[in-house]
């Protein structure tokens, strides 16, 4: 009985105290309810939607983006490097700021910046984080040539190289500490130069950041930021309404009206960094099962049967759009608003393509990871029904984890394609579809072999320094891609947040949630 009374006393004390964690400081403690956290905060190893939300507060990129004047962040801005110049076609030099401190108190050096981009860390044979090679194609050498200058040489002329350093590739890490703890250890206790330092990280519950008052870019406006895992939407919303949380992520589309009905909350939606699609399996792999989608006419029929504009409008309203393949407004020099897809929505044409194909009622399996992207499950139900109406025998194989989805046999597979790279669609068209891409090489879930003309033009595209010629070659690659139709492109990804009206927060067209100086103020 004594134990029981003690327990009740403890609980009652908690009730009266309200469990508040706020401290009496000038700057607020800030709590963000997120659906999940990624396993690592190492910039490259941890490159995922759930970590990208956080990392801009921990790290600074070598080259910044002018987010405050342009929500697409298309214009470059100085960051921990305040000058850069192209010495010749293959060589760039970057001059670092001298007043930048890491969270462990050490001053950032040119050696740290060089290590961040180094062969040893990313692109060598036994690199520490080999997943970063997709950002470092054409790197030939990276070297600190004096105390403040880093020289990067490439194997082909690359006029857009500085753009690459706005990505997680450019998040500067401290060389000595990184080598001491290794990439996995660094991912758990990261050190950067950003406005907040990590004080706690537990992937299954929370990440807690604390203001770093030696930040070179000004005084961080928040005392602490906690990204707390609240998997259930109802839990996140309840915490927002009760004032326990200040921001929450991921509002399902059918709950937006509910969220908007609360006067103290503001719903914000923005286009994000990726494009959502369904990859067709174009390969005939008899060792697994017959693959009906290896027939290009069936792929044409399936694409032509989907009214993507209506689908996206129904799911997202005006929040996003259905792009023509690789015609992305976030790579402005390569974007043309008048471009239309080769295969547009046309049910009559879909029936004709189907008639021209060898399809004979075989099962077409669609592998989908449940909840992989917002609204995607609903979209897949819709497209599957459209294909059934056309006479295609589709079966949804909805699974709960990536390893279960990313394996043969399948006819289609969900995928998201990021364009964040260098201000061009190179990562999208070549990183995702080139001969060394996951789609072309992975033993368990490869889905296409790029045709010889695609590879040939792609190699010319990579080596081409002239911007206009590069755009022409890009268009030729897109034409071949559309001819082969290895995927159905659905929409530009959308990110949304609910924010307490106690704050004025500047959001950007990205998964990144920025809380550094200039981005947030308390009302």
């Amino acid at each position: 009985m004594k134990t029981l009374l003690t327990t009740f006393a403890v609980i009652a004390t908690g009730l009266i105290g309200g469990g508040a964690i706020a401290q009496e400081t000038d700057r607020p403690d800030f709590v963000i309810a997120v659906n999940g956290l990624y396993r690592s905060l190492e910039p490259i190893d941890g490159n995922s939607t759930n970590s990208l939300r956080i990392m801009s507060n921990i790290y600074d990129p070598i080259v910044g983006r002018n987010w405050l004047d342009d929500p697409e962040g298309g214009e470059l801005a100085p960051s921990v490097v305040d000058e850069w110049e192209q010495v010749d076609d293959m060589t760039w030099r970057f001059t670092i700021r001298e007043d930048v401190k890491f969270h462990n108190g050490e001053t950032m050096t040119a050696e740290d910046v060089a290590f961040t981009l180094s062969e040893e860390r990313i692109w060598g044979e036994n690199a520490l984080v080999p997943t970063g090679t997709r950002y470092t194609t054409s790197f030939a050498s990276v070297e600190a040539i004096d105390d403040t200058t880093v020289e990067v040489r490439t194997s082909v002329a690359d006029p857009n190289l500085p753009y690459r350093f706005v990505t997680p590739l450019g998040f500067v890490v401290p060389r000595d500490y990184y080598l001491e703890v290794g990439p996995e250890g660094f991912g758990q206790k990261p050190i950067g130069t950003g406005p907040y330092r990590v004080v706690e990280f537990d992937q299954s519950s929370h990440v807690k950041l604390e203001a770093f008052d030696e930040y070179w870019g000004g005084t961080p406006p928040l005392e602490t930021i906690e990204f707390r895992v609240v998997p259930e939407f109802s839990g996140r919303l309840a915490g927002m309404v009760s004032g326990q949380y200040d921001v929450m992520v991921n509002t399902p589309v059918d709950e937006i009206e509910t969220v908007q009905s609360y006067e103290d909350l503001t719903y914000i939606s923005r286009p994000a960094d990726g494009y959502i699609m369904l990859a067709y399996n174009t390969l005939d792999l008899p060792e697994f099962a017959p693959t009906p989608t290896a027939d290009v006419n069936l792929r044409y029929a399936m694409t032509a049967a989907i009214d993507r504009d209506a689908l996206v409008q129904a799911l997202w309203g005006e929040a996003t759009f259905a792009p023509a393949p690789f015609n992305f407004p976030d790579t402005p020099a390569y974007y043309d608003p008048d471009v239309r897809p080769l295969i547009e929505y046309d049910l009559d044409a879909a029936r004709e393509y189907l008639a021209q194909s060898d399809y004979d009622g075989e099962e077409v399996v669609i592998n989908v990871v449940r909840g992989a992207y917002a609204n995607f499950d609903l979209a897949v139900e819709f497209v599957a029904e459209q294909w059934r109406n056309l006479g295609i025998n589709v079966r949804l194989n909805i699974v709960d984890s990536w390893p279960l989805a990313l394996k043969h046999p399948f006819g289609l597979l969900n995928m998201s394609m990021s364009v964040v790279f260098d201000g061009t669609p190179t990562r999208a068209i070549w990183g995702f579809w080139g001969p060394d891409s996951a789609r072309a090489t992975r033993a368990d879930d490869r889905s296409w072999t790029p045709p010889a003309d695609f590879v040939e033009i792609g190699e010319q595209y990579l080596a081409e320094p002239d911007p206009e010629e590069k755009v022409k070659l890009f268009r030729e690659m897109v034409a071949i891609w559309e001819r082969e139709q290895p995927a159905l492109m659905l929409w530009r990804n959308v990110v949304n947040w609910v924010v307490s009206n106690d704050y004025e927060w500047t959001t950007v067209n990205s998964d990144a949630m920025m809380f550094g100086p200039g981005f947030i103020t308390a009302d």
Partner: protein
Amino acid sequence: MSFSFLLGKLLRFVLTVWAATTLVFILLRMTGDPVAAMVPSDAPQVVIDQYRERFGLGEPLFIQYLSYLRGILAGDFGISFRTGGSAWDMVAPRIGPTLMLTGLSLLLALVVGIPAGMFAAVHRGKLLDRFVMGFSVFGFAMPNFFLGILLILLFTLSLRVLPAGGFDGPSSLIMPVITMGMATAGSYARMTRSAVLEVLSSPFMRTAKANGVPPLRRMTHHVARAVLVPLVTLAGFSVGSMIAGAVVIETVFAWPGVGRLLVTSVTDRDLAVVQLVVILAAATMALSNMLVDLLYGWLDPRIGTSRRSGGA
């Protein structure tokens, strides 16, 4: 209690844990390549191969299994793919929060369920009995994730008196403990009621009543002892349901315990961590079953005698 009896129980405990370990080791590797969960979906095969080599996943399955068993015997439960550190270091800090949650839930179930069941039995057929049994069926039938969400909607969204999730202080315990404890309390109440009714109709209770033993003394000295055996059985079973419940409750209430860790570890295919959590869960259940068996003999010596003489 003989040495051979204890040795048999211990052997059964070890076999149970080994079987669970082996099963989860094989199943995890049959359900997709763990590297696929570790690398971005656009990572090419060459990167996948580098990670497989780094984590020893290129070895034949049997070699991996033997190496894992050897490690366990040396107290090494493997390396977490996510952190690069020991799996034990991932799990250990979360055992406390989970024990706090399940312990308080069990306590709540006991202090609500047993008295409620006793009252219902004593007032059999009356309004109080129906009320208690209605509550019991409600607690038993209501899925705990649904009850949890209802509590969040009521106490956080409408009344705004309790935090929705996480651990911000003792008040964060209230809703998860009620959610988990109520289902178990319902089972305890039903079991207690039927056990008490059975005892109340026994000849020795009629004798005690005829001898003028007061009602309270009859309940505490005769009934309570007699219902302990079925209740201990139920408590043994409820350890399993509480472990399963913790996975759900910790997800609904964002509780930083082993259940949440298990969910994220399965999603990320963090093999060593999943295996360790399963070993701990299996060991807990096997241990609770062993304790129940031992308690039987202590609570009712006839059970131990019957076993030794080969009876049921």
